[in-house]
């Protein structure tokens, strides 16, 4: 049976669908956070070299991965919106940006917390940390550009173009920062063993999944409010019972 995808790309239909989907992502996210953190703190063994402090990576790594992944997803949605003029895709891109920026920020923050015991400094110009900082700026640029344009259609299209240019640039920036880093300092601290303990892997993957589910849930909630705001003058919104005057 063919599914009519376009039916769901109409904001009015998607509004209801997103509302029904949110609990299916939010609840598993909460459960997996608890499980992942439990394994991370109580099951995973102490690292021979880094001691207890290494446990911050259970948050740090998923946050970093998601911040990069979400930027690409955001740019993808933005491109769809720009090329096919589908309003919902642009709204999704707008809804994803704050979550992506949040993960980039968490990644930087936990990176700093990890850096203090490991490197003896809160901030080290490590290649990955620096790239993450630049990524955060790219998110800020997207959000700021979108926010400063009043006309929603121009805002969507301009921000989309910026996101696409940014995503083309991300690999170049990453490569150049790595190049710069190898010029200036040696390699950073590695894990004691070549392979991670099983419990470490379990914790990290559980938390990665939890973060992803959280990102989906929050984005859906946010896109619902964006839909309401953009469509506030339409009949279907005025007929919603939660809107009732």
């Amino acid at each position: 049976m063919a599914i009519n995808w376009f039916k769901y790309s109409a904001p009015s239909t998607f509004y209801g669908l997103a509302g029904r989907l949110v609990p299916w992502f939010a609840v598993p996210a909460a459960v997996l956070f608890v499980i992942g953190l439990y394994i991370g703190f109580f099951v995973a063994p102490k690292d021979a070299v880094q001691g207890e402090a290494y446990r911050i990576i259970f948050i740090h790594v998923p946050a970093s991965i998601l911040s990069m992944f979400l930027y690409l997803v955001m740019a993808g949605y933005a491109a769809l919106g720009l090329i096919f003029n589908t309003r919902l895709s642009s709204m999704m891109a707008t809804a994803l940006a704050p979550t992506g920026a949040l993960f980039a920020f968490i990644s930087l923050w936990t990176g700093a917390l990890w850096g203090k015991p490991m490197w003896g400094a809160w901030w080290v110009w490590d290649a990955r940390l620096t790239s993450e900082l630049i990524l955060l700026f790219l998110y800020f640029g997207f959000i700021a550009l979108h926010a400063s344009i009043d006309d929603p259609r121009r805002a969507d299209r301009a921000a989309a173009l910026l996101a696409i240019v940014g995503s083309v640039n991300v690999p170049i920036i990453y490569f150049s920062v790595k190049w710069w880093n190898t010029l200036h300092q040696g390699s950073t601290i590695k894990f004691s063993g070549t392979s991670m303990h099983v419990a470490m892997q379990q914790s990290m993957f559980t938390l990665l999944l939890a973060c992803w589910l959280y990102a989906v849930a929050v984005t859906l909630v946010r896109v619902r409010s964006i839909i309401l705001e953009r469509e506030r003058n339409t009949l279907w919104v005025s007929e919603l019972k939660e809107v009732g005057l």
Partner: protein
Amino acid sequence: MNQLSVVHLLVLVVRRDLLLAMRRRADVLTILVFFILVVSLFPLGVGPEMGMLRKMAPGVLWVAALLASMLSLGRLFSADYLDGTLEQMMLTPQSLSVLVLGKMIAHWLVSGLPLVLMAPVLGLQFDMPAQGLLVLMIGLLIGTPILSMLGAIGAALTLGLRGGGVLLSLLVLPLCIPVLIFGTGAVEAVASGLSAVSNLSLIAALLMLCLVFTPWVAAQALRISME
């Protein structure tokens, strides 16, 4: 025939913008003075110790060049936007990408080239060796056009927005980081007895990429902003 050849159109646009810049020489000079001023502030801030200044020089000059070109980008499209000439340019039966490329070239000639020419003099203030100065100049020569081209995208996207100038820097500066890294890397490579060729060819590669894509992207951005 109304459609002009690419070269003819480029010449027309560049001549127009240069003529306008000549009538507004003060704007051009302000940017150059800003560049010199920023560079001169560093020794005052970090102290006159020559060894450190020599080490800092390429970075300082490059960052100052970045900031100076951000300043001038605000006017790249906005002056034409405000008096309606940009509208008319978009209605000519010419390729908008080529028109935009013309404006990028003119912008670089007016605000990038003077920085390139001024850089060696400022480098001497920092006691840079002759070979380092040469590499710095080559790097700036092929690197500053990239700043004009990436900047044009930002300028087109922020056209007519309040607080456009600050926003423009926020959008464009992160994209310029690779140029900064390779530009300063080239000078440092020479200083430590290595060849600057790899760094410089990376900038040249970026320049080629920008030449191919940025005029078109900036043209699309203009269309979005003019709606």
